């Protein structure tokens, strides 16, 4: 059928941030949907958010409660959410208790009462909560046919009356097969609540949605005082990538390092600073942000190991004023340490901050802290999630600097842990070396995807003015092992008459 002859299915906003994107634009109007999941996973709250986002006095929402949570208690708890609008109660949003109909007259009594209410109110939205209890009352003694007939009659009624409807039920995944309810439904949204060690992770899946393409897979969501917020697993990946006509170089705030990098960090790159504790990774990240602010490029710092005020206070010790840009909105410091975070939530925070500030630079300090803040189940997928996040953020033109703490060995030089070096365009390695009985620091540009860079191993110092890069160590070999040898002693050994060949 050509496009002109095709019926246009309107999509309704769900009122749940992030869910419309997962559904493929919104919920199809007049669809007959099921919200399933275990107790306490947010089914009722999701239905309420949809109701309050869409119901009007002319086309209200009818919320039928049946042998589940009484409406009085539902109102008591749901009014705690910010989306709850008391003005709409009994006008746009109406609650009807059907427990007595079910007990006294069974499924047909419930259907009759719903029919009467629907015909009287002409609602745009109908919710039956809990639908499971309605069916359970008759799912015995071979009454499966009665249940199937009831579901079909209800679906027909609600669709005929142009209502978008939700049946809410506590189902387990094992009940998916051969269930007439799931067969009739146009949409099936499953909410999960997974416990992993001490953390709880909430996820949702669109198992079925007729008429449009939803995003497959499990998506994390959170319940806050604003209700549900969903995070699509393709968050930020679906838009167009920003194309750079010419490679602009961003200053790191350390002139000698810019020189080593062939002019600075290429715009839109992901740069990894790897080194052991105390080598100055965070300082370099702070100098990178401060250089951006000076150049009129707003920035974001995602920090996991110190609070925003501690972060700016530490910067001021090196003569870097981050307090002023923080106050005037050209810098945002995101501090997240909930221990059950998902990468998608972090990315949503960053994307929101990018919108607010127009940020061009992002610092993640550090990847180890970020990983620690994730719920254990998300740590398993850290590499994959980090890949998605970096791809999405660099895709909108953000230049990312991440710090990574490395354990130091004195026999080899590791460039990064997690095998994440492939995720980054550029790598700078910082490390300690022992020179003449003293601990010195060296730095090298290990990798730059988009250009030539210095191969030198340079010494550097941390001063009150920040990182100061010195000359190349010319008189030592094996610097990258951490225990270098003076070149002179190597030469004398080479020419020693006692040297065995």
């Amino acid at each position: 059928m050509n496009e002109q002859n095709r019926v246009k299915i309107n999509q309704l906003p769900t009122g749940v941030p992030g869910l419309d994107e997962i559904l493929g634009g919104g919920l199809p109007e007049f669809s007959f949907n099921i919200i399933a999941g275990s107790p306490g996973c947010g089914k009722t709250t999701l239905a309420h958010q949809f109701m309050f986002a869409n119901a009007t006095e002319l086309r209200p929402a009818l919320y039928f409660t049946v042998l589940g949570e009484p409406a009085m208690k539902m109102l008591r708890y749901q009014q705690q959410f910010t989306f709850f609008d008391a003005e709409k109660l009994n006008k746009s949003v109406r609650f009807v208790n059907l427990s007595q109909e079910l007990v006294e007259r069974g499924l047909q009594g419930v259907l009759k009462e719903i029919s009467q209410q629907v015909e009287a109110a002409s609602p745009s939205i109908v919710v039956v909560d809990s639908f499971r209890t309605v069916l359970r009352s008759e799912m015995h003694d071979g009454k499966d046919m009665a249940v199937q007939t009831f579901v079909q009659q209800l679906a027909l009624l609600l669709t005929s009356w142009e209502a978008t409807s939700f049946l809410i039920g506590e189902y387990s995944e094992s009940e998916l097969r051969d269930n007439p309810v799931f067969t009739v439904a146009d949409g099936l949204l499953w909410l999960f609540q997974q416990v992993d060690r001490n953390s709880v992770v909430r996820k949702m899946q669109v198992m079925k949605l007729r008429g449009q393409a939803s995003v497959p897979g499990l998506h994390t969501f959170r319940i806050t005082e604003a209700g549900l917020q969903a995070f699509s697993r393709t968050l930020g990946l679906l838009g167009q990538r920003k194309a750079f006509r010419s490679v602009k170089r961003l200053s790191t705030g350390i002139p000698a390092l810019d020189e080593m990098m062939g002019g600075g960090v290429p715009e839109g790159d992901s740069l990894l600073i790897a080194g052991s504790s105390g080598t100055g990774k965070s300082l370099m990240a702070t100098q990178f942000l401060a250089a951006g602010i000076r150049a009129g490029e707003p920035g974001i710092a995602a920090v996991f190991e110190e609070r925003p005020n501690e972060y700016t206070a530490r910067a001021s010790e090196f003569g870097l004023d981050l307090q002023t840009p923080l106050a005037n909105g050209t810098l945002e410091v995101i501090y997240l340490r909930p221990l059950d975070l998902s990468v998608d939530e972090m990315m949503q925070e960053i994307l929101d901050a990018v919108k607010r500030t127009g940020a061009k630079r992002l610092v993640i300090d550090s990847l180890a802290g970020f990983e620690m803040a994730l719920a254990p189940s998300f740590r398993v997928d850290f590499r994959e999630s980090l890949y998605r996040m970096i791809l999405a953020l660099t895709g909108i033109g953000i230049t990312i600097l991440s710090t990574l703490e490395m354990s130091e060995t004195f026999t080899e030089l590791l460039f990064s842990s997690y095998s994440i070096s492939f995720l980054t365009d550029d790598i700078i390695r910082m490390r300690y070396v022992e020179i003449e009985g003293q601990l010195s620091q060296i730095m090298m540009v290990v990798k730059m995807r988009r250009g030539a860079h210095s191969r030198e191993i340079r010494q550097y110092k941390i001063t009150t003015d920040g990182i100061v890069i010195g000359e190349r160590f010319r008189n030592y070999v094996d610097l990258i092992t951490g225990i270098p040898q003076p070149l002179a002693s190597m030469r004398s050994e080479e020419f020693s008459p006692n040297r065995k060949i």
Partner: protein
Amino acid sequence: MLVDTHALRSVCDKLGRPLTTLAGAAGFRSLLTRALTLAKQESPVLCALEVQADGSLGGLNAEVAQSGAVLIAHLIGLMITFIGESLTLRLLHDVWLDLPDSSKKLERNEAR
């Protein structure tokens, strides 16, 4: 005196309608029974009163009706406990459209 018993019955019926819709007949009956228990402690004359299976009041007479306001106050008090003053006033306003100053009182409370 006949008017008084009618008034109490009428108020209970009017309150019963939104509460039955919200909480079901059994839910309304439970609330009314709890309100009556609390009211009896305050006004022993209400001991003659009982909530019947259908949610109506039994044992209502002129003397009991004099203290009817105590029962209604406790019923509204329970609504406020459960769903808050804001929603309770809105529900009452739906029943008594000319309820004086409910919105102003609400605004004052919210401002406070």
